[in-house]
């Protein structure tokens, strides 16, 4: 009873996976945004790290052999389990009969996984070799598009970083301005702009935030490249390990991670990227136009002008140009990762690794 309920749940989830895969066929292969900022450099960077065909997915001999090995192992286990069932039936050994029935069910689930996952992907490509299924342009297109958006964000933000760095240098220089009047070896000196050191702390915070944004988005691009290159192996290894009773949990974990990260995550990130902004326009900070000879000699006027600049122009520019778009995409990416982790846990649970969801280890990773 429990086994049949479990199998129906797995079948339901596998149908969801099949729908997700079919959605890939209708999403654009890749649709880069209208060029702005460093779009060519972003496209070139992503084409370098996410290649259309990789050694795993090029349909080479071992990829095809891996599929044959997977099917062969399933058939071998089927034969062993059948033999065990026969012995159990002949000698009336209850535990052997129960074991055999359970294993037959698990072999059935493994076969369904192979047919649904690999068969659907093969149908989308129209290819015949199982190894070529991953060279489906939609997989490449989705990953490439996500990488492009993240890299473009990072590169465009470097212009903001440059502007902020130069602004900080200018403010540091101005804050050290010293006016000294000592006509007869006695006089006074003043630092009219020393208050800029306080503003500099705000700019330093802006710079650190911008630096984190750049590192984060580059990191997401490379994270996607690693998933694209590495996780297809998890599918093959997962199928092989899931076939053997004693390594079923590891196989289920591999398959759950593959489904969650290779299939669902790029789709979710793609939706976030498509539905939101396209690229961050470079922002120019107006501080360089602030300081003139007259403003240097007229500290009150320059301080008033500076306060207005900081309050109304610089901060607003920073929030509108850097923070708001970045936060939107970061939230979208974090939600995508959490959903993918949850889905990976659930699929791993149903595919042979129930501890994956009960231990919440993946959530701990987040």
């Amino acid at each position, binding site marked *: 009873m429990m086994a049949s309920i479990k199998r129906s749940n797995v079948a339901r989830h596998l149908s969801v996976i099949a729908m997700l895969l079919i959605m890939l066929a209708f999403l654009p292969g890749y649709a880069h945004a209208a060029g702005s900022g*460093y779009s060519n450099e972003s496209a070139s960077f992503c084409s370098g790290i996410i290649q259309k065909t990789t050694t795993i997915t090029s349909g080479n001999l071992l*990829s095809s052999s891996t599929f044959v090995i997977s099917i062969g192992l399933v058939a071998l286990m089927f034969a062993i389990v059948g033999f065990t069932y026969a012995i159990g039936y002949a000698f009336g050994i209850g535990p052997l009969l129960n074991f055999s029935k359970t294993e037959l069910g698990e072999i059935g689930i493994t076969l369904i996984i192979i047919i649904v996952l690999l068969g659907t992907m093969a149908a989308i490509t129209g290819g015949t070799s199982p190894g070529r299924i991953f060279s489906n342009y939609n997989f490449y297109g989705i990953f490439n598009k996500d990488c492009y958006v993240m890299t473009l964000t990072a590169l465009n933000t470097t212009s903001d970083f440059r502007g902020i760095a130069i602004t900080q*240098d200018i403010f540091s220089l101005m804050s050290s301005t010293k006016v000294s009047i000592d006509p007869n070896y006695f006089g006074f000196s003043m630092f009219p702009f020393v208050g800029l050191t306080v503003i500099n702390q705000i700019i330093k915070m802006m710079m650190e935030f911008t630096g984190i944004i750049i590192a984060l988005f*580059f990191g997401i691009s490379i994270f996607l490249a690693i998933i694209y290159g590495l996780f297809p192996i998890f599918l093959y290894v997962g199928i092989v390990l899931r076939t053997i009773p004693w390594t079923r949990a590891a196989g289920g974990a591999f398959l759950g991670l593959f489904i969650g990260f290779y299939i669902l995550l790029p789709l979710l990130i793609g939706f976030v990227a498509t539905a939101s902004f396209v690229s961050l326009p470079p922002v120019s900070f107006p501080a360089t136009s602030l300081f003139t000879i007259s403003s240097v000699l007229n500290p009150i006027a320059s301080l008033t002008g500076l306060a207005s600049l900081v309050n109304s122009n610089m901060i607003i520019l920073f929030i509108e140009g850097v923070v708001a778009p970045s936060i939107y995409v970061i939230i979208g990416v974090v939600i995508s990762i959490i959903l993918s982790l949850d889905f990976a846990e659930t699929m791993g649970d149903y595919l042979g690794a129930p501890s994956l969801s009960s231990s919440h280890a993946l959530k701990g990773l987040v």
Partner: protein
Amino acid sequence: MRAASIFMTILLLVLALPIAYGASASPLLPNALGVNGLQAYALSHYQFVKSLSSQAFSSPLLTSITPPVVDMGLAFIVVIMVISIAAFIYILASIINSSNAKNWAKIQIYEALLSMLLLMIFLGIFYLFLTNPSGSYSSVGLLPNECSTPSINTLFNLSACDIGTFSNNALGYFDLMSVVALASGGAPGIGVKFSPMTGFGISMKLDSVMPDGIEGMLGTGLSALIFFLVLNNLQLILVSGSILFLTFFITLGVFARLFGITRTFGGAMIAFGIGLGVIYPLLISITYGFIDVKMISASTAFSAAPFAIADMMTFIYGSSLPFLPTQIVLGLGYVVAGLTFIPFINFIILDAFIVDFSKAVGEKVSFMALLSNFI
């Protein structure tokens, strides 16, 4: 102010000339203008650190592996003894017509037969892992050049080589970041003084054109990197001892499983042994094999560093091209992934296996709980 920035730009362009015309020069030739000198310093420092790190982090190659025949043989003998005793008790129980004793004897025989089956399977898996995986891994792009030598002829050797190669490269990148941080101290400052008449003057200065925020970010990055490098040694230790874990825990587990009171403990030990001795080396060989093949080696990154610094300076002073030192970005990205994301994925899969397998054959054991308590 504008004259100062123009002067700085000209100075930087002059400094960049050796890059354009001296890129093919041997890094050991002296160069007074500094960029090739920086490269020479960086490469010599890297070679020195590499020689130190190769002693500390050299992949622990297992040159000779003694199959655990003796240990497994003893376990077989004990299993047969238990079966014999249980069979004798079964016969006695049949004579005295004791159903409890018969059931007990049946259970002992089943468990002993299962232990024998497990022993045979584990020995088979062990011998399977002793076959040379280089051809298979190479055909799917998971065999780094450093591990393509004839001495890497088992999965255990390959996994140790993969993690050792990654550790060496990661240490090299840490060294690169240290050099960049030190080099940031060479960023010049600017000073301007204007004294049109005696007794009146205006001066301003900037100690360093390197913004304060960058130094803070470099420091934080280096601290995080060294922390994860230290944790990475844990993986090196686990992989180095994988055969020991396999033979010791499985043999102990099979012995313990033979006796009723220690059966659950034995099952947990078997799960631990298979997890750390079979699953973990397999995971390491796949994940770190991929990372080692894809990442740029530390020596290549060192060669690219002076050019990256020059690109950064021209970018800061108004270049329309983006600042994208692709090789260094990729290398650092893969290092960070190998120190954070990949170990967690490996431990999660390992934990899922150990928990579920130990629940099935004995007492539930959670590897992640043990590890987090330890850390």
